[in-house]
């Protein structure tokens, strides 16, 4: 490990700690802790959303996938981006107009039932945990590789850092760490892309011709079908990607950090542009890595291709760029897990403790204390789980989180805002059926069972053929919401729905609410 790498790492870590210290002075109320007091501007929040979204899986994973599988790696970029149209057109504004801190708050605008809040908290915690384990496992692998330290120490370092951010700085620190990191990450991407294009004389056609012969796949590298050979499997994955984002708790939570729907909208626009440009750049990174690092070296460092981006930085920018990109990747992981801890903690502390156990009567001090304890508990739990999950495939965990979000959360969000008849039984059935069908189906899928030893968790024939169950579990979630509503004798409250509809569409808020 060279001194440059260590110094750059320390600078980044110090910078985030300074932010956390400053933010801890600003964090006075529960609202500050959960949602930065709702005071971020649209642009700041947009950059923070990009930061939340451009996780290690996006940055390291997609660059690696494109480097190894060409066009098929690019599928992820497209799905992740178009997902923002779903967020913008259907979810962001009504969510901001109805919610306060969590998804459950928004659903609660229509129903008071504890079981609805409980189910929403359950799906939020499950999604956050899966997503967080994925990030921690990825982080562990990266740090282990960079510093040559054991995996468990690497996970502990990341885990302790994220706990510090959240515990002391809450959403203000998390947001600002996210913003700083997003800017650094974009800068890094632009520099690498520029250097890659420079090598191809700024000729895109030349780049394509070059990579056509650069890999062992030859011309097939530029065609779809290298990685995803099963049509239904591909479509199922694409479905999870495009619908999952609109149900991811840590992304949804970001819409409560701004003051109104208009600002929520402008933050989605900023995020969509930033993320779009980022994903175009993943192509240059992937192709660059394929051409200038080479498959063999990428696979040697990590069979999943996760080291493609840092290795490319080293190959074309030398040690300093390598150190910079690695440090940014580290900051990326830290910031994303911090956001996830917050969304998990808010489900525990705000929904389960504050609203269900204390029935909304907890004082602000009690709530804040509960939020911090919950953040600590979520952190410890995910660190322990990540220590046991070292050999799980990271991309599989992330796509599972997207799948649960699309199956359990999205149907309820859409029905709550747009369907008059929807009632509590419908809400509970949609969430539970969506959550458990995704979990059960994936536990019987080729991601868990494989006839070849070592390819998956267990050896055996998979009962369910798709690696990502979204194609079945998303329709099941929607169906369960419909059937649960129709079969239940409880009637929808027309007055309540009129109020929700008016508020969701106009942004009207009562004073003192």
């Amino acid at each position, binding site marked *: 490990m060279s001194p440059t790498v260590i110094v750059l790492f320390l600078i980044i870590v110090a910078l985030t700690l300074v932010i956390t210290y400053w933010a801890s002075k600003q964090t006075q109320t529960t609202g500050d802790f959960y949602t930065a007091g709702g005071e971020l501007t649209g642009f700041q929040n947009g950059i923070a959303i990009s930061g939340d979204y451009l996780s290690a899986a996006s940055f390291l994973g997609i660059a690696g996938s494109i480097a190894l599988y060409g*066009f098929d790696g*690019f*599928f992820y970029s*497209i*799905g992740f*981006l*178009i997902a*923002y*149209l*779903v967020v*913008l*057109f*259907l979810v962001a*504004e009504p969510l901001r107009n109805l919610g306060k801190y969590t998804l459950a708050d928004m659903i609660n*605008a229509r129903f*008071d039932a504890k079981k609805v809040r409980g189910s929403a908290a359950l799906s939020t915690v499950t999604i956050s945990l899966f997503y967080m384990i994925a990030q921690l496992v990825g982080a562990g692998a990266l740090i282990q590789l960079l510093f040559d330290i054991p995996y468990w120490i690497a996970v502990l370092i990341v885990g302790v850092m994220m706990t510090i951010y959240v515990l002391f700085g809450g959403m203000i620190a998390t947001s600002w760490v996210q913003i700083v990191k997003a800017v650094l990450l974009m800068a890094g991407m632009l520099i690498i892309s520029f250097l890659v294009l420079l090598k191809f004389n700024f000729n*895109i*056609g030349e780049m*394509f*011709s070059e990579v*056509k012969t650069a890999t062992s796949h030859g011309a097939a590298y*530029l*065609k*779809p*079908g290298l990685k*995803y050979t099963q*049509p239904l499997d*591909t*479509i199922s994955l*694409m*479905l999870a990607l*495009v619908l999952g984002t609109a149900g991811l708790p840590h992304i949804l939570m970001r819409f409560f950090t701004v003051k109104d729907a*208009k600002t929520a*909208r*402008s933050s*989605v*626009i900023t995020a*969509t*542009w930033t993320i*779009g440009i980022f*994903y*175009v750049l993943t192509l240059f990174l992937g192709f660059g890595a394929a051409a200038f690092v080479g498959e063999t070296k990428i696979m040697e460092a990590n069979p999943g291709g996760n080291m493609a981006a840092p290795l490319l930085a080293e190959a074309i920018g030398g040690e300093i760029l390598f150190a910079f990109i690695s440090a940014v990747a580290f900051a990326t992981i830290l910031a994303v897990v911090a956001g996830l801890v917050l969304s998990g903690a808010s489900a525990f502390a705000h929904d389960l403790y504050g609203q269900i156990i204390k029935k909304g009567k907890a004082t602000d001090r009690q709530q804040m204390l509960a939020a911090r304890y919950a953040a600590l508990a979520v952190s410890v739990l995910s660190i322990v789980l990540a220590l046991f999950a070292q050999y799980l495939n990271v991309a599989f965990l992330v796509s599972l989180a997207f799948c649960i979000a699309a199956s359990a959360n999205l149907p309820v969000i859409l029905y709550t805002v747009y369907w008059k008849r929807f009632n509590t039984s419908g809400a509970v059935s949609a969430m539970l059926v969506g959550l458990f069908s995704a979990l059960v189906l994936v536990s019987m899928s080729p991601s868990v069972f494989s006839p070849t030893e070592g390819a998956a968790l267990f050896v055996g024939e998979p009962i369910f053929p798709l690696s990502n169950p979204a194609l079945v579990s998303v329709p099941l979630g929607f169906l369960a919401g419909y059937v649960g509503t129709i079969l239940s004798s409880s009637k929808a*409250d*027309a*007055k*309540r729905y*009129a*109020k929700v*509809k*008016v508020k969701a*569409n*106009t*942004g*009207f808020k*009562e*004073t*003192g*609410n």
Partner: protein
Amino acid sequence: MNDESGYNSIDESGQAIDFEKVEQSKPFQKLMHERKKFIVPYTIFFLVFYFLLPILTSYTNFLNTPAFGDISWVWVFAFAQFIMTWVLCTIYVKKASSFDDQANDIIETQIKNGGKAS
């Protein structure tokens, strides 16, 4: 002013706001109609456009024909997805500002009156 039942909100003059009346008022109905007319077709369009890509690459081969040199149509289609996203974003912002005006108008004329004006 958020009571147990959650819908008997009180307006500035202390009267209960009848949200059902607001919901049935002409301006609100007009806003909902326009929103629906805008959001539904665009949502269907971008979902169809998006799923067309994996469906075409999975079941057909014709996107593999070259478009520009070594760049085949599948790449052109992939980039079209990015352009489509940005264009739709821009269109949405334009349209949304007209919805904002209507919404403010509804808050001023309907809700502040407790939903009595129709």
